[in-house]
């Protein structure tokens, strides 16, 4: 141990530390300053950034003793410093204020690091240019990717810092609210930009994610992972690990008292493997110990002997008759079929037939918060699990099943979630911590490091997609045939559902008379694949939208015109036989984007003729279902309660993963009750206190839980009206709810008083609503497979360097039909974040697995887009309402990610004449193709 004496947030601080602790560990675990986040522990993500003597450093890789005698500032010190400087005891630092008002925090996990990096910048340069901000934030990542909001907020804050320094009043500073796309006139609350209720906590460091919780006597758990892709377990001996001092429990499959497997659809995933492992991330044993170091050391003492089995490494191989089998049931998870008309006839009618095969790799969610779960035994003896999960109720039932307990003996409490994107739907440590808490009787925390997170959790499916299209000379599509292989990895997860979506959407948002699609979702010995923003449709959109551009070129038609003439319209029939009756805004989206491209002078900024750089635009479309569909009951519950202080609380178990569901339910409740949104609290994800809202997936929560909150609030309003009507002898219809008051006949009763009246009359001022979305039909039955679709058109301007193959995206244009903009601020955050993710898929990201072994097992090898990749985005909103949606809204969470990749690859073709049939674009292969005169990179 050594004594570390330093200045922390302007206060002299002395703390005893071990010589080998990092500054991040000392701040978080010794000093309780959990605002500083750890996203990677490898100096890659910037989440742990703090200022040391005014300079940002990555505290995760910074020996604490380096700070000896230094001045350290963390996010917790930001507001106090500003308060001292200004004398305003309530103020936030301008950066914090600008982040809150400017809608920067989504999941919030990156925010402390971004703030501190920005603080370091503004301290030196309060008026940074765009380039200055991009340079300063180069390695401070936001996976929710609100980069343009970040840029705007930092510059707007800088102006205020500068004004304070120079004693000017800052009135000339730009507004904190960033420019947002135009939307229709708002209602009282709906349609107005609203900062998130958790934004202030997210900028002060007070926001608590799972690893920020500490309980007395808490043990630390770690998981022993297989490390081999396919093997039989011949021997497993935990004796030496159990004997290590400080180890409290070591559990293996034999210690799982209930069901041995979990799984969201198919229960095929062992909580702990007994006889066989199917991928490198399989859990073989779990250890709980007094410290994380001891738990880690114990893993090394567990003896496992494996007998290697042949590895199934890709889905095409998996389907061969002689392939080794991953599961006893065979390698085929599901053969998914879409049939419409008769493709043979369609191709016979075609003047042109084109066929190409596309490949997409696994992609990683790279949510900045690695998985963490805490299990403990509550006073009443029940098991409690704290976790940031996208599906709290299904977590509960999966935990209960494996523990052999009824569901009501388990309580799942949601912590804030530092990003999900589909990657926090499957069980991670939830079952393990519950088991360990039961065995040890003590609270147990299981925190994955980045390496474990990368290796363990399900990815976006790697796919091979063959597209064959037939068309008339005038561009009319006559037939589309697709064949998809989806690599579902070792376990089913949501693989079947994901690949079903990939398949049903594989002919694009077009009306095609003859369609045939076959998809083979296969088990392999790769990490499982499951839900990921776009749910299979990112992959098929890349294939079909690339093919559409090829077709346009072959026919000598304008790609915009070709698309326009084949688009789905109201009255049209989808590939699955669904007749679209409303809300098909795709034509409008396409027109907006095409016009915007035209409006921009093509030659503007075109590099000089002598330059070896080429610029061009490319365009792509996409559509995506809202909701589970396919006949799955799609429902959500919400409860709204009015309090005597005039506030309300809305409760539901929908997950807030950064997408802005909190403001959606808050705003729907406020709108219906006539309350200012600030008086509506939101309580999410506690299976004891909040009704089930189903999984946070399939862009469904705004629709289903938004509706549940809206209708619960409406029901409550009606109950309040009924009470007041009786009491004051009014017609209930006469009572209007505005600004927290119930008004009638010149009278105004504050809602707090109304709540009191209800209580006096023995009625609870509370309403629960279980909303059922319109029924859907299973694939193959020809009815409504989905109750709504969102649509998008996007365009990208790229620059290709003909000498190096480097590709840069210069500008993005987008138009999204999302029914109704409930909160335009959060909406734009989702749109930009989704598009930047699509850009990442096109250019920067690739999760590499070779023979079942993960190559990209550290963040240094998996590069998500940084602020330097994020171009300006021109965004349009189309609000083609869905009758059943809340105020007309449908989903937005996924659609924005879908057309971006093909828009970029189409632009690359237009710029340099090489078509990329495989993502991500590899500058190496692109350059070699250019040199060789190849037209395609396969």
């Amino acid at each position, binding site marked *: 141990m050594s004594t570390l004496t330093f200045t922390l947030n302007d206060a002299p601080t002395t703390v005893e530390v071990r010589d080998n602790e990092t500054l991040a560990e000392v701040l978080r675990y010794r000093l309780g300053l959990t605002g500083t986040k750890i996203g990677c522990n490898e100096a890659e993500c910037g989440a742990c*950034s703090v200022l040391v003597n005014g300079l940002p450093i990555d505290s995760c890789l910074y020996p604490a003793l380096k700070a000896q005698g230094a001045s350290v500032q963390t996010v917790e010190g930001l507001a106090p410093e500003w308060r001292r400087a200004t004398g305003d005891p309530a103020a936030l630092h301008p950066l914090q204020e600008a982040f809150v008002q400017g809608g920067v925090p989504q999941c919030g996990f990156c925010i402390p690091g971004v703030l501190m990096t920005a603080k370091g910048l503004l301290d030196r340069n309060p008026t940074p240019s765009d380039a200055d901000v991009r340079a300063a934030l180069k390695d401070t990542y936001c996976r929710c990717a609100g980069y343009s909001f970040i840029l705007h907020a930092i510059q707007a804050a800088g102006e205020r810092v500068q004004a304070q320094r120079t004693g000017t009043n800052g009135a000339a500073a730009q507004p904190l609210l960033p420019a947002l796309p135009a939307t229709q006139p708002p209602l009282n609350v709906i349609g107005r930009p609203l900062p998130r209720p958790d934004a202030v906590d997210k900028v002060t460091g007070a926001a608590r994610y799972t690893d920020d919780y500490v309980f007395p006597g808490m043990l630390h758990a770690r998981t022993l992972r297989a490390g081999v892709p396919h093997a039989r377990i011949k021997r497993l001996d935990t004796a030496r690990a159990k004997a290590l001092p400080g180890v409290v429990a070591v559990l293996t499959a034999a210690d799982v008292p209930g069901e041995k497997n979990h799984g969201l659809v198919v229960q095929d995933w062992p909580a702990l493997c007994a006889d066989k492992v199917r991928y490198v991330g399989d859990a073989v044993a779990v250890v709980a110990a007094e410290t994380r170091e001891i738990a880690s050391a114990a893993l090394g003492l567990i003896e496992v002997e494996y007998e290697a089995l042949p590895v199934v490494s890709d889905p095409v191989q998996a389907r061969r008759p002689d392939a080794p089998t991953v599961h006893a049931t065979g390698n085929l998870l599901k053969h998914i079929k879409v049939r419409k008309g008769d493709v043979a006839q369609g191709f016979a009618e075609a003047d042109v037939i084109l066929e190409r095969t596309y490949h997409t790799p696994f992609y990683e969610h790279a949510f900045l918060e690695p998985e963490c779960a805490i299990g403990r035994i509550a006073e009443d003896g029940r098991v409690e699990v704290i976790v940031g999960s996208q599906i709290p109720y299904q977590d509960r039932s999966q935990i209960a099943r494996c523990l052999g307990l009824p569901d009501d003996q388990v309580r799942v409490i949601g912590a804030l979630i530092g990003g999900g994107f589909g990657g926090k739907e499957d069980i991670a440590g939830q079952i393990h911590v519950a088991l360990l808490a039961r065995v040890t009787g003590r609270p147990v925390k299981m925190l994955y490091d980045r390496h474990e997170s990368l290796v363990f959790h399900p990815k976006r499916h790697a796919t091979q997609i063959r597209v064959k299209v037939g068309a008339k000379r005038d561009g009319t599509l006559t037939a589309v045939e697709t064949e998809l292989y989806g690599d579902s990895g070792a376990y089913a997860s949501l693989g079947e559902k994901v690949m079903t979506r990939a398949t049903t959407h594989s002919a694009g948002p077009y009306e095609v008379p003859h369609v045939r699609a076959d998809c083979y979702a296969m088990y392999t010995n790769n990490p499982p694949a499951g839900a990921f923003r776009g749910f299979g449709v990112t992959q098929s959109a890349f294939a079909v939208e690339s093919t559409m551009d090829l077709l346009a070129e072959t026919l000598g038609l304008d790609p915009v015109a070709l698309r326009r003439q084949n688009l789905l319209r109201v009255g049209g029939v989808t590939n699955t036989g669904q007749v679209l009756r409303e809300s098909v805004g795709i034509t409008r989206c396409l027109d907006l984007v095409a016009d915007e491209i035209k409006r921009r002078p093509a030659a503007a900024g075109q590099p000089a003729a002598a330059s070896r750089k080429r610029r061009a635009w490319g365009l792509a479309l996409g559509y995506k279902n809202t909701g589970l569909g396919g006949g799955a009951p799609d429902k959500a519950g919400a409860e709204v309660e009015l309090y005597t202080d005039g506030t309300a609380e809305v409760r539901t178990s929908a997950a807030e993963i950064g997408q802005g569901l909190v403001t959606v339910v808050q705003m729907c409740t406020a709108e219906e009750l006539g309350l200012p949104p600030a008086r509506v609290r939101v309580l999410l994800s506690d299976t004891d206190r909040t009704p089930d809202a189903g999984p946070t997936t399939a862009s469904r929560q705004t629709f289903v839980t938004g509706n549940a909150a809206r209708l619960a609030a409406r029901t409550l309003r009606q109950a309040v009206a009924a009470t007041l009507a009786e009491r004051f002898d009014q017609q209930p219809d006469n009572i209007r709810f505005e600004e927290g008051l119930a008004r009638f006949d010149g009278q105004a009763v504050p809602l707090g008083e109304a709540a009191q009246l209800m209580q006096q009359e023995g009625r609870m001022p509370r309403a629960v609503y279980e909303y059922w979305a319109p029924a859907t039909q299973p694939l193959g039955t020809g009815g409504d497979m989905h109750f709504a679709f969102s649509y998008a058109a996007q365009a990208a301007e790229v620059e290709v360097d003909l000498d190096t193959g480097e590709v840069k995206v210069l500008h993005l244009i987008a138009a999204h039909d999302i029914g109704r903009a409930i909160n335009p601020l959060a909406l734009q955050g989702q749109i930009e974040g989704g598009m930047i993710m699509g850009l990442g898929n096109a250019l920067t990201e690739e999760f590499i697995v070779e023979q079942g072994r993960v190559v990209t097992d550290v963040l240094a090898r998996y*590069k998500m887009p940084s602020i330097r990749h994020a171009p300006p985005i021109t965004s349009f909103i189309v609000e083609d309402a869905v009758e059943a949606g809340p105020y007309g809204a449908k989903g937005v969470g996924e659609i924005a990610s879908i057309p971006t990749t093909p828009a970029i690859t189409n632009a690359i073709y237009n710029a340099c004449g090489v078509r990329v049939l495989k993502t991500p674009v590899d500058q190496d292969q692109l350059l070699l193709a250019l040199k060789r005169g190849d037209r395609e990179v396969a």
Partner: protein
Amino acid sequence: MAHWQHYYQPTSVGEALTHLQHHSGAARVIAGGTDLLLEIQQGHRPPVAALVDVTRIPDLVTVARDGDWCYVGAGVTHTAIVASAELAQAATCLVESCGVIGGPQVRNVATLGGNVAHALPAGDGTLSLVALDAEAEIAQAPGAGQTPARQWRPILDLYRGPGQSAVDASRELIVRFRFRAAGPGEATAFKRVMRPQGVALPILGLAAWVSVQAGVIAAARIAVGPAGPTPMRARRAEAALAGQAWTPEALPALADLVVEEARLRTSPHRATAEYRRELILPLLSRALTLAVRRAVTATSAPEAAEEA
């Protein structure tokens, strides 16, 4: 991080060497730690008993000019190098190469000495030091009763192979580097190509030093990496340049000479040898053109990197 037990922060070279000596091989020099700690943490290097932090030793954190010579302490951070007005003019390529290492958080702690001692053939700081024909001052633990020995060694002598330094950081340390500042008609430039996905290491980097006297390239030095197990000087191309009037038309032939001499490899998930070969010409052309322009116009504002 339970990978070392003691962390020392000596304030003199002698004190640092004493700590190393005391642990007889089980302690190791640490500067910014941005390479070392990751290596230890990820199991690429065994845990050590002690780390000896050299960034509080005044000799190691000083940038100085003495006549024609520039001295840069091995513990100087990349941020400090980028901020140095002296180096911007005297060693533009070094400022440019240190400016593209990592992001600001890494550059605020990572050092030039660490970059050199990490011994990658394409370390960005390394390539510029090679083009500058720098020397490194190495201090060794003394024998009993002796004062620490210090010795200047040519930069290229410090590289044994990829990641293998001739400096044994468990017994010796680099104190500082020295090289001649750009004189009249002399200038440098650095260029590299990265790739956004896969393993985040440079695909190819190139630093150039030229002396242009009376319209003729009097001398040139070109450093390229990775083009072999250690940083490479493109001596054939240098020789071909010397004594010639500068003309861009000569570039393709020069690039061919570099390619002949370079041992370009395919690194999985990073770059094919073929791609690297294709990059030699554009990198050489960009760096040389820039260096010559600087030499001729006597201007030397370092260029900010455009790469992502």
